[in-house]
């Protein structure tokens, strides 16, 4: 990668080329390991508890909230895939 010819204008342009990302988006990605653990716990619970499993199928987000889990996008998509309505 060439990094030559760095006049001030060019440097400013390159610094501007990578603007900050919305903090919530970054935080959600940083929390992936925690979300994966949470997902595993929910799946384990659903496999052991038929009523909870049915509640997930009937209304996924409400069932998650009722069980104390925040239904974030990644967890919801994965659960929908595993427990289709």
């Amino acid at each position, binding site marked *: 990668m060439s990094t030559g010819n760095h006049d001030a204008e060019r440097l*400013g342009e390159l610094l501007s080329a990578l603007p900050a990302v919305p903090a919530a988006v970054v935080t959600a990605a940083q929390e992936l390991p925690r979300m994966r653990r949470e997902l595993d716990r929910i799946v384990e619970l659903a496999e052991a508890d038929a009523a909870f499993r049915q509640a997930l199928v009937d209304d996924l987000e409400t069932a998650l909230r009722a069980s104390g889990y925040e239904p974030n996008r990644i967890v919801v998509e994965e659960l929908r895939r595993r427990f289709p309505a």
Partner: protein
Amino acid sequence: MEGAPDAIDAALVARCRAGDEAAWSELVERYSRYVYAIAVQAFRLSAADADDVFQECFVRVYERLGTLRDDAAFRPWLAQLTRRVCIDRLRAGARDAELDGEALAEEAADELYRLEEALAVRDALATLPENCREILDRFFARDESYRAIGEALDLPAGTIASRISRCLGRLREQLEGRIPIAVES
């Protein structure tokens, strides 16, 4: 974290693979701007699509990190993965299902090159003292005014321009290898 970018990546990837969540957080932080900029600038996705692409990329990275053959090659691997996710997103939203992925990648190539160069500049920026990192990031990447920067950093607004100029000089020297890379304890 200091050192050559590839070596930093390799160390972070190894720690991530060992289950170190702080390393994962650092890896996401390190590459968040790059991934987002590929989506928004190279492939011109909307903010909403870029958010989705961003999450999808890091989900794939998290799931597939074990398949990376060379930890030091993380950056090109991530770039390739991000390009694929962007093209998939454009295809999913296109009326023409036969959207040509290669043509899209070709159109984005110049911008991708520029973003790689920008990433090299950010690597150099990361080696500068905190006051320079802060002021250059606020002015160029966060698009803050002299006044806003002055208030945030408790500096007279009249000195901001000269500080930016000095810090750009240090950044240029760093890129051209004139000063040794600072080592923070």
